């Protein structure tokens, strides 16, 4: 019996149709900077407190994140440019409205965008169905208006969602969801209409959980390289996805940016790396492997 939430068929990675990436690449590498704005005086939804340290505003925590937009983003972008990385930004779409220079810098680089909600201080968990539908209309329209791009995927705002989220995403025309940390390859997510897949994001190769603890840039570089080495080896048989998740207020700190440089220099010196975006991974997977994966999982699960 499938277990709740019954969205993804069990499919062991050793027993699946083989994935071949374009040009026989072993690893599809995507870099996901989280470009965010946390509100000065957010509305508390009664459940998850954006600024738990003290009554709002929490100037220290607000300004720490604001550093990302004023300073860190630009230092991070310099490092990414050095390695010709085309990112897939996890975007609080209100950033486009508040801080147009950041939007222009991302459009200029032809980066892709997935929605990360409107603000990082507004969570989906308690949205009604109609509020959530409106939320997708809003994020799709806002992205289109400011970047000309069609929204294709989402990492829930501050990684939040509802039980309805995959269905409503697919209904709104989105094709991928990155809240799923369950695999090294894309997999289909069962929805009421259309096709939706997960594209592996990372809560491990991610500067936010890492640098809240005592780990520092050298450790970040070490684990990113180790992850790559393993996936690169396995990807010779069947293509793997590797995501590095960044936050400009963290990786853009003056003591850290060099470690991103180190990681990208290492990975990009290898042949067989498809440096791409979640948009392109999702489209490629749906075009080439979605139906086969569904059929295979159905057979496997009887």
């Amino acid at each position, binding site marked *: 019996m499938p277990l709740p939430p019954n969205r993804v068929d069990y499919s062991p990675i050793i027993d699946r149709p083989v994935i071949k990436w374009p040009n026989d690449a072993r690893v599809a590498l995507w870099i996901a900077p989280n470009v965010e*704005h946390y509100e000065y005086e*957010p509305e508390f939804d009664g459940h998850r407190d954006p600024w738990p340290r003290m009554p709002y505003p929490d100037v220290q925590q607000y300004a720490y994140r604001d550093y990302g937009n*004023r300073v860190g*983003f630009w230092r991070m972008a310099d490092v990414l440019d050095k390695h010709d990385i085309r990112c897939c930004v996890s975007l609080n779409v209100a950033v486009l409205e508040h801080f*147009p220079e950041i939007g222009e810098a991302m459009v200029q680089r032809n980066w892709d965008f997935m929605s990360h909600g409107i*603000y990082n201080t507004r969570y989906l968990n308690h949205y009604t169905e109609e509020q959530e539908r409106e939320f997708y209309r809003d994020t799709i329209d806002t992205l289109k208006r400011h970047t000309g791009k069609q929204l294709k995927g989402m990492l829930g705002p501050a990684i939040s969602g509802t039980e309805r989220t995959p269905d409503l995403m697919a209904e709104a025309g989105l094709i991928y969801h990155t809240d799923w940390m369950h695999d090294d390859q894309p997999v289909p997510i069962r929805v009421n209409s259309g096709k939706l897949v997960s594209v592996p994001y990372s809560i491990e190769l991610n500067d936010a959980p890492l640098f809240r603890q*005592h780990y520092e840039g050298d450790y970040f570089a070490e684990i990113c390289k180790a992850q790559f080495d393993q996936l690169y080896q396995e990807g010779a048989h069947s293509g793997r996805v590797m995501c590095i998740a960044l936050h400009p207020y963290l990786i853009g700190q003056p003591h850290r940016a060099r470690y991103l440089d180190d990681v990208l220099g290492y990975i990009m010196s290898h042949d067989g790396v498809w440096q791409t975006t979640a948009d392109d991974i999702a489209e490629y997977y749906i075009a080439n492997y979605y139906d086969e994966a569904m059929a295979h999982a159905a057979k496997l699960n009887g």
Partner: protein
Amino acid sequence: MPAERRFGMDHPHYDWSPLNTRGILRWPDNARVALCVIVNLEHPEWDPPADSFTTPFSGGLGARGFPDYARLSHREYGHRVGIFRVLDTLRKHGIPATVAMDAMTAENYPYLVRHCQEAGAEIIGHGVSLSQMISSNMSEDAEREYISHSVAALTRATGSAPAGWLGPEYGESNRTPQLLSEAGLRYVCDWVNDEQPYPLHSPHGEMFTLPVMWELDDVSALWERRVVVGRYQQLLEESFETLYEDGQQNGRVMALNLHPWLIGQPFRIGYLDRALGLMMRRGGVWAATGSEIVDWYRDNPPTA
């Protein structure tokens, strides 16, 4: 108020200004980095007023049952022992201290006030006590009274009114910058969002931020995140190297916020000493007090 979706910041205190779009900031003698070291002297109260607010972890060990001898005395170590090590280390490297002193310290530790003054430190406002943060729980009148009490205590103890301010635990309400300006302060260190000073909006005269590097605050790195002290030295050095490189194009400020009860422990001080030594051996570093940096910035704003 939740943010309105429009251009700029979602509060009235300063303008949106990405660093890469600014004019060039030049420090005295074309220094690349203005180095400011802020040293906190703050008193945790034995029995704080019932309506006061502080964060659970302020003071290090976290709140426990009353009376809490260990937590209070751990902080007191800074006043009795740590401060002298820290000031000696700064003097060794020719770095003038900027001491953030709360009213309770100013009123009850005349020896320390004198010692800091003799060491050439600038003394800036740091609230009333560690156990009384500014927050939105305060009424406007109570906050005004709080700031004025802190400023008056420092003025009495030091003979002059403070020019700068750092809230205990970086605490502010949504009106703090205006009230600080109204009280005659010229700069505030609570906003950890930049690598250059910048102007704040105030109807009461010129007001600036002197942004601290929050990640390099010893409480953030050593206490909250538990970075080991050798790695902390490396953090300071790596941060400096990057700011030094970037400061060649556009001047940077490196404002460190340190706590003598923490960095002043015998096993830690040497790591600070070595990091500051590396910075000060380099040419093009301007070690200055908060006021010197803000005054220079005011008189020599960035130019295109």
